[in-house]
């Protein structure tokens, strides 16, 4: 069906709402990547099978479950507990569901309306029936992620039923392009991709270019290790992002758009593809949208997974089919971006913010978050934290609230040590930063950045030198190789860090790390290079003692393999020789029935002896 006017859109929305209303009971199975990996497809199949059978004999089971809709929804965001199943209208949330649980859920909840107690979320002895009550969700403000987990991401009608495309409707019929730019500028929406650049200003720059061919590009090349905010939006609510891009196109006079998604996100790509096809079928994408003069075509471009392609000019080069390498600026992307034309380039989350700003107005938006950073921010909470997953909080929420109230504290009651914010480009926050509000300006002042929103929590068992080495290894692998400081400098920094974690570092190495780090930060060509040394510089500043300990051949966290030594306790050793026989390098010597000794020179630290000792006589010494 082709929507030719505002009335057509309104009508289809009402029809969609009616269609949803007939679903008396909805089983929502999370189909986010995490839950899919946990087997949610099988659960979905099982439920479909169960309900199909019942449907066929519906006369026997009465009317109360006449229509059971089974939906594949996007990420619920409570990844630690997946696969998740949510039953509406009762709002029961079941965690860690297995295919064999489906029948019980069906019998108890669908047929009788009762919760399956053992599948409910439980913390501190309290069971939570509904998702909204669980502290993980209760403390969040889900605006961008509002639909994620609640609507069928593969069905445009559900998006329409939930008010989708009403922002597009509003701008097309009630606003001039310049008014849209003004509204976004007044909302002070800042780019969620990392830099926090003013979105409205960017749009204004594009709108005023003399060149009339313009592009709207969405950066979905989320490459930070541990980040999945944008993926979740593309998977769970693709139309919201598309609608945001269309508003941007209308505001800036663009006719065509590209979504640049990494090929490692197959689900996001297929959901986006489906969403674009469905929108095209309604002619919500295409020529003369809703009968107006506004036309917009949207393409998907798969990136090959190069981190550097998240940088604007590398991204546009990649879309053009060139090697993904940042270029010097000026000209800026707003002047000469994709194919040399003025280009609006924002990330997924930024576009997903747009429809609600248009619908509710900039004043409403300014009421959320902090003065300098209005709105909410999605974070991917991972690492050593009890509740990992996707969260959304108002800007300005403190780090402590995120880790302890929402995240439920550090895993295994270990001591909180640090959090890496913003991925490999970000910085390290420590226990003295727990009161720090998470917003663009506070973090910048602290020498860190939100980045795209990765939060990796680390506890006392994490070695900070190893963390620095990990991120440096990542950036070194992902450096495009263009500019000398990033290409050669990160290579040398990694070389030094590897030396240090292997216990071969020297004290001068720390000065060299600082010298290189400073030079790279100041002289590299692009943002990736300029921030490449930050994890090292920030850990070197806060945890210098840990670096020094490594130089003294000791890893305080006990995690660096080369610095560990395996020791046999002579008291506990019975001299059974089992360890010696299991040692692959013949590093254990001794005489039967008297304590054995490990030759540290020969030992390769594989741990085979610990596993083989029947008397628990072997331990790791730091």
């Amino acid at each position: 069906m082709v929507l030719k006017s505002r009335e057509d859109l309104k009508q289809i929305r009402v029809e969609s709402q009616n269609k949803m209303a007939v679903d008396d009971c909805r089983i929502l199975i999370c189909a986010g990547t995490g839950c899919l990996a946990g087997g949610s497809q099988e659960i979905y199949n099982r439920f479909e099978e169960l309900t199909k059978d019942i449907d066929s004999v519906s006369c026997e089971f009465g009317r109360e479950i006449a229509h059971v809709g089974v939906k594949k929804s996007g990420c619920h965001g409570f990844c630690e507990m997946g696969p998740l199943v949510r039953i509406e209208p009762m709002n029961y949330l079941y965690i860690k569901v297995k295919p064999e649980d489906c029948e019980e859920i069906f019998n108890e909840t669908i047929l009788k309306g009762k919760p399956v107690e053992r599948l409910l979320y439980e913390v501190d002895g309290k069971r939570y029936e509904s998702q909204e009550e669980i502290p993980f969700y209760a403390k969040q403000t889900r605006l961008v992620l509002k639909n994620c987990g609640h609507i069928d991401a593969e069905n445009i009608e559900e998006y329409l039923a939930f008010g989708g495309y009403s922002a597009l409707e509003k701008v097309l019929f009630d606003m001039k392009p310049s008014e849209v730019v003004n509204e976004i500028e007044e909302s002070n929406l800042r780019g969620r991709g990392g830099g926090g650049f003013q979105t409205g200003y960017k749009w204004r720059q594009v709108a005023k270019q003399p060149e009339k061919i313009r592009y709207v590009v969405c950066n979905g090349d989320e490459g930070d290790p541990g980040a999945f905010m944008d993926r979740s939006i593309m998977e769970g609510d693709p139309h919201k992002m598309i609608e945001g891009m269309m508003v941007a196109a209308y505001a800036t006079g663009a006719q065509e758009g590209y979504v640049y998604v990494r090929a490692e996100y197959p689900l996001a790509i297929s959901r986006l593809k489906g969403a674009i096809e469905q929108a095209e079928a309604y002619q919500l994408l295409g020529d003369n949208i809703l009968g107006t003069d506004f036309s917009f075509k949207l393409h998907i471009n798969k990136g090959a997974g190069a981190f550097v392609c998240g940088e604007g000019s590398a991204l546009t080069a990649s879309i053009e089919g060139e090697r993904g390498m940042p270029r010097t600026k000026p000209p800026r992307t707003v002047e000469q971006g994709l194919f040399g034309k003025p280009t609006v380039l924002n990330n997924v989350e930024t576009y997903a913010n747009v429809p609600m700003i248009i619908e509710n107005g900039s004043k409403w938006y300014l009421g959320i978050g902090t003065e300098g950073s209005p709105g909410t921010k999605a974070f991917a909470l991972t690492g050593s934290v009890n509740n990992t997953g996707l969260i959304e909080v108002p800007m300005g929420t403190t780090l402590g609230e995120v880790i302890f109230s929402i995240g439920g504290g550090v895993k295994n009651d270990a001591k909180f040590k640090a959090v890496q914010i913003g991925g490999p480009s970000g910085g390290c926050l420590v226990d003295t930063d727990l009161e720090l509000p998470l917003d663009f300006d506070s973090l910048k002042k602290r020498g860190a950045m939100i980045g795209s929103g990765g939060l990796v929590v680390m506890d006392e068992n994490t070695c900070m030198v190893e963390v620095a080495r990990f991120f440096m290894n990542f950036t070194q692998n992902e450096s495009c190789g263009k500019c000398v400081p990033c290409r050669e400098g990160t290579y040398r920094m990694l070389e030094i860090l590897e030396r240090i974690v292997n216990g071969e570092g020297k004290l001068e190495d720390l000065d060299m790390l600082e010298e290189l780090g400073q030079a790279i930060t100041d002289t590299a060509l692009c943002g990736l290079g300029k921030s490449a040394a930050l994890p090292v510089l920030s850990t070197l500043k806060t945890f210098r003692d840990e670096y020094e300990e490594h130089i003294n051949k000791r890893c305080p966290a006990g995690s660096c393999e080369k610095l560990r030594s395996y020791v046999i306790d002579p008291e506990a050793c019975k001299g059974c020789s089992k360890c010696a026989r299991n040692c692959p390098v013949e590093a254990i010597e001794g005489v039967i029935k008297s304590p054995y000794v490990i030759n540290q020179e020969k030992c390769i630290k594989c741990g085979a002896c610990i596993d083989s000792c029947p008397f628990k006589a072997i331990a790791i010494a730091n």
Partner: protein
Amino acid sequence: MDFITIDSQSVPIEGEKNILSIIRKAGIDLPTFCYHSELSIYGACRMCVVEDDRGRVFASCSEQPRKGMVIKTNSSKIQKYRKLIMELLLSSHCRDCTTCHKNGICELQKLAYKVGVDAVRFTNNKETLPLDTSSPSIVRDPNKCILCGDCVRTCDEVQGVGALDFAFRGSEMQVMPAFNKPLAETNCVGCGQCRVVCPTGAITIKKDEERVWEALDDPNTRVVAQIAPAVRVAIGDSFGIPKGTNSMGKLVGALRRMGFDKVYDTTFGADLTVYEESKELVERIQNNEKLPLFTSCCPGWVKFCENKFPELTDHISTCRSPQGMFSALLKDYYRTQDEKEGVDMKTFVVSIMPCTAKKGEAIRDDYKTDGVQDTDASITTAEAARMIRRAAIKFEDIEEEAVDMPFGIVSGGGVIFGVTGGVTEAVLRKISYDKDHNHKALGEIKFSGIRGIEGVKETSIMLGDREVKIAVVHGLGNASKLIEEIKAGKRNYDFVEVMACKRGCVMGGGQPVPAGPRTKQMRMKGLYSVDTASQVRTSNENPLVRLVYDDMINGREHKLLHTR
């Protein structure tokens, strides 16, 4: 006028697009590897970083000048960064400087000295990569590449060839042809412009010197040299002679001291070319076929046309290049003479060329006569200079000597073959002489718009009542664009002169480096001065050419002087 402050010096902004140009204007020669005014701004070497009054550090090559900026180019921080960047570059560079062909003329070496690197604190643990010696023209040594991308951009942006690009990422990045194919199997035309811009020994000339030394040593071999026009104004660069000076006489003397039996001037071949090519042009115009006629002197262009526009190869003149014509003639001359006198001697023709592509031309099948290669070794100006150095000859002090007879007179028109527009000018001189038999036309031709450095130049001449439309293009990128326009019917010509290298042979891939803007200018000027000072300005006034046609060629033009 707006000003910016550079190291407490107030400098006007006069339309410069970047701060680096203003800094250099202010007399501070900031080091760079990847900045070339003729190429796009790449911003990769970061050697040109400067600091502003707020402590912001940025690359001056890619920063627009704004009124009132305060720039420091030499703060201790900036100096430290420059030195460290240099150290990082050196740390993964194969530093066998003393045995490198670029020793002494290496930009990396020079800048390391300028920047004052006193130690490299990192070890080079890069794997040694194999050399690519497949091309007859150039050798690629990836171990010496500093990834400045100058070759990549030159090949793509200036030459429109794109045989080289980057592969792999991060510290594993390399410059290579697609799929790391040997250069000989790519669309490389051998022009050597990549070698001209390469700051290190990563791209060098494929050397043919040893074969020449061996021939010189053999008592049964007569070694004959021919020297191309553009060589005379460039070889002096290697010996500290002022840029653009005509060193032809010295070179002749040096070659004789090295043991060459006879030394000739390729300009004689150019004079023959003028005869053959103008005849071909007039014939094609009369028959109205295969127009425009493209020149064939430049082997880079010929190969480019064969690769990219195979449908137009028929339009290329069937004339061999001056090197080809002259070598064939020399081989034929000595063979006839030896037969007559009953002498059993081999003749080894060495051409000294400003060009790396000539090496490829020399081994082409259509440059063989009766299946025998006419040019035995084609060496570049840079190789000739190296040979003179190896022979320990004090080039700068050598007495000037004249070339040998019977080919010892050449025309000024032939000499300017070495600069863009020169072939056309020489052909025009011949055609108008044939028409009017006077010299008045020379001045008119000079100012007809075919001199100068614009990418495409146009002129026309009346042949009877037929207007002959002419274009002169240099740089393969420019040529490619022009041809596309010709194909699209947007332009229409009868004669098109193409030189693969910008400015023509004076800036050929085999000339001494480095060659900055002044060198380029002086070399062009040098050739025009030789022409002006010539007794004989047009090819048809060269009395020896007539003799050669009558006594030696005897109607065998297509065997000796043409490719078919």
